[in-house]
């Protein structure tokens, strides 16, 4: 039995969406199927993000797809997904209690529009994955170029009626430039950050462990990078920011909100903390707001006051 934290003080409004609390499941985590999304909803997330869906079925990279490193995980899933058509068909069969962010990826703006049109029929908002660092010629190549980001975001925004979030890669020298490109193209918000490029090599067999050789680093390792990215974006943008990266404790959650995140995604933490992490963070957060006599709107970005 899951005991829900029902606390009005946790409710947020995000680019016109109503969420019961600011915790959102990160893309690629469990949200491979509608059943997975439904589960996380029951565990207490205010929103859930789907696995990134593309135009076609993709099996992803060869295994190993995941390797534990000292301060997190490297993953090289390779964007496996059943294709946006199949996924939305299934999504139509379930009724989720939470706000659904449909994450999509594609090769170019035309394809992004195409996938977006399908996804918008079943999602409450779109998240454009401009940033997956390990799918060759997809993702990071796009997300590092402001002009491409601008092109894709405007193409999608023009075409859909639900809020559009651009997910940014930290693997650039100035994340705010990319954020600004997304904002000026009409994005309703940004999501920061995706994984950092990383690699693990086994010293006994002397080879890279991941089937794809390298992958994306997530978990506690990247948390300070995420906090800094959100902090910088908050200075540069006026649209909402969803913070993500290594959030596993209540302190991590509050920290990234102080940096400027309006909502926060949870990913890798589920590996070590389990599904109860949503409940635990919400209950920490609820106590925090109470004991600090502060509301969420007051808290967001407060670290900039100093």
């Amino acid at each position: 039995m899951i005991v829900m934290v029902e606390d009005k003080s946790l409710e947020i409004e995000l680019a016109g969406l109503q969420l019961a609390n600011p915790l959102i499941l990160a893309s690629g985590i469990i949200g491979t199927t509608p059943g997975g999304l439904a589960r996380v909803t029951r565990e207490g997330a205010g929103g859930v993000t789907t696995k990134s869906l593309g135009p076609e079925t993709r099996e992803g990279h060869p295994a190993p797809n995941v390797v534990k490193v000292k301060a997190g995980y490297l993953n090289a899933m390779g964007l496996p997904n059943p294709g946006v058509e199949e996924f939305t068909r299934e999504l139509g069969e379930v009724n989720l209690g939470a706000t659904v962010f449909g994450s999509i990826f594609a090769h170019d703006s035309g394809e992004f529009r195409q996938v977006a049109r399908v996804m918008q029929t079943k999602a409450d908002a779109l998240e454009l994955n401009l940033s997956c660092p390990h799918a060759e010629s997809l993702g990071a190549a796009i997300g590092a170029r402001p002009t491409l980001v601008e092109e894709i975001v405007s193409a999608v925004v023009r075409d859909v009626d639900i809020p559009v979030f651009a997910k940014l890669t930290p693997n650039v020298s100035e994340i705010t430039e990319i954020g600004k490109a997304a904002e000026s193209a009409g994005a309703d918000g940004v999501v920061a950050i995706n994984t950092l490029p990383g690699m693990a090599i086994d010293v006994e067999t002397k080879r890279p462990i991941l089937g794809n050789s390298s992958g994306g680093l997530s978990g506690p390792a990247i948390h300070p990078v995420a906090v800094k990215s959100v902090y910088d974006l908050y200075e540069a943008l006026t649209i909402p920011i969803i913070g993500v990266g290594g959030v596993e404790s209540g302190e991590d959650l509050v920290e990234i909100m102080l940096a400027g995140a309006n909502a926060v995604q949870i990913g890798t933490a589920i590996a070590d903390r389990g599904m109860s992490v949503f409940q635990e963070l919400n209950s920490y957060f609820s106590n925090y707001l109470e004991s600090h006599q502060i509301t969420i709107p007051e808290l967001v970005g407060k670290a900039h006051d100093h």
Partner: protein
Amino acid sequence: MGKDKLRIRKIKSVKGKTPSVKTFKVYDPPSTGADPGQFVMVWVPGSGEIPLAISGADENIVDLTIKRRGSTTEDLHDLKVGDKLGIRGPYGNGFSIPERPSLLVAGGYGIAPLRYFHQKYADQVRIHVLAGASTGDELLYVDELEPSAVTTEDGSRGHEGTVLHPFKEIIRDEKIENIYASGPEKMINSVFEICREKGLHLEASLERIMKCGVGICGSCLIDGFRVCQDGPVVDLEQLEEFEEFGVWERSFSGRRQEI
């Protein structure tokens, strides 16, 4: 890091058990404390990484009983004593500790986790075993587990057909209320139907594609249940709630396909 960090181990021994199954003994202390039903993720360098049940444990040595099926299990079968494997885990939950006479229902290499169960608990309670395979020479652990009955699809040994036939007989004849099943999902599904009808306690070990083993990638989902973390062992009540069990499984892309 604990159990999640990849451990590189040398193969201690390899034994052909059937024409398509070999048992590997590997030095790996962390696995030997596992509960029967738990599994490990095994990396075959240059080939792939797959989930494998623990089929036995002794001192610091763990047993893996592996059926040759596709690319990675083939590469595994080519490995020799001294070759290196990567192991992480053990992962998932195990079967409950048996407190009364129990019946193990095994299909194919599904006998692997049940063999460990038997090894660990046979001196505590009476354990009956039913084992099925495609052919007689594919039957596993027969000498060791002394099944009450064996079945083969081609009738080359024991009853012709599946374990369902002797299963129905044994639960009719003997006072056994606790069933532990492992094997193809269709078999488990049938056992499940019967147990539900007869009011027997069932625990079964399930299989899905497992890309992470730690509960985040979503490749192993049955509904919202992560077989790698929340399972692989489930009980009858859980099976009753699943909508996808016995009907849908997921391909590598996450696309659902009929079982």
